[in-house]
């Protein structure tokens, strides 16, 4: 799936982008249709491609549902009854649990950040090797949780499926998504680490503001004070 992104004819906007509620992905990469119902999202995040949000298709694992429910409990309570269907970013790439997990998290982030939070931004899932190919950056490895880049003029957040911490806690995934989205807000420039950590701190602040937890990994300062972060877990 990742390779098709680099084709010249690839365009994020030609594909169900502005009508996420009613359109489904013919390849089977269905949108999550999440709907907060109070304190339990178990019946809201399952998808089967038809957007009805039922659970019988078991699109998310029990662990993922429990993780989302636990990590976003306060958010869900505060948004009881809200329809999150149109709040997510379009997600491309890897199929299966990880993609659905990111879809669900992006919907919570989108609902918290307000309408238009993901406007013009697509999310691409891929392995370290696939993201290296996408970004032409040889330094991408499993420590690289997310990446902001442009593909054929379209803004893309790449989520590394080789970074396990991203998928172990919804707050971690949300923090990575917000971090990469902030890169766009800041002009999409390459940032030296001296400035980069400010962006990561802001991502954590926003995460807390949104009521989505802290993202797991607080900055503790690395070698000689150069922003170092422990692994998210």
């Amino acid at each position: 799936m990742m390779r098709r992104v680099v084709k010249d004819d690839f365009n994020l906007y030609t594909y169900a982008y502005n009508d996420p509620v009613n359109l489904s992905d013919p390849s089977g990469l269905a949108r999550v249709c999440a709907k907060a119902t109070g304190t339990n999202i178990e019946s809201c995040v399952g998808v089967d491609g038809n957007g009805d949000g039922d659970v019988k298709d078991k699109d998310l694992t029990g662990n993922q549902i429990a993780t989302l429910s636990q990590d976003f409990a306060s958010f869900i309570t505060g948004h009881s009854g809200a329809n999150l269907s149109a709040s997510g970013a379009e997600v491309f790439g890897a199929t299966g649990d990880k993609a659905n997990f990111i879809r669900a998290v992006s919907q919570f982030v989108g609902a918290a950040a307000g309408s238009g939070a993901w406007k013009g931004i697509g999310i691409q899932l891929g392995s370290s090797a696939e993201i290296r190919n996408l970004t032409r950056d040889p330094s991408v490895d499993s420590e690289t949780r997310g990446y902001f880049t442009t593909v054929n003029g379209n803004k893309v957040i790449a989520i590394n499926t080789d970074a396990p911490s991203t998928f172990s806690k919804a707050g971690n995934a949300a923090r990575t998504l917000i971090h990469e989205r902030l890169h766009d807000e800041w002009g999409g420039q390459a940032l030296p680490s001296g400035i980069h950590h400010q962006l990561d701190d802001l991502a954590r602040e926003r995460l807390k503001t949104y009521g989505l937890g802290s993202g797991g990994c607080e900055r503790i300062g690395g070698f000689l004070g150069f922003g170092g972060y422990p692994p998210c877990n």
Partner: protein
Amino acid sequence: MQENVPMRMLIAVVAVFLVSACQVPRSEFQLCEINHGVFDREPTVIDLENGVVRGKDVSNVMRMARSDFVSGFVKPFPLVLPARPPNEVPAQWDLEGYHFTMSAPRSDPTALVLIHAEPVRVEAGTVPTYSSVVFSPTKGLLAVQVSSHAPDRVITMDLVSCGTEELQASSFH
């Protein structure tokens, strides 16, 4: 002496490996920020072979820009360098949506040059980017300050050449 041959071969192989591993391809130019008195561990990389500018978890495709007297790029931030001796470059010019102003002592063609770039017009919903480049006709790009004016803050980066390669206008050809 005979038993030293394998050792010499091993040393030679290791030496070749180390030399090749330490070499930075000529198509890559690294810009460092001074962070707590030392070069930042995450340089901004101008990757001409792939046509991108890379940083930590960010890459952007360059939009190249060229005229009769300068070469470089204007995206993701404006950076053009004189392709002729500075005294043959005008003091101001417009290129690819940016207005450039160059300041250089006219009496000395080897003196440092300052090139400032700002967008001709700022489109709504975009993050305008400004730059000031310090260029040496003999040593290439020395430093660049990049300022991105986001809605709620100005992000300013002061980058200097890491010294790995000289970036000249001819590098973009």
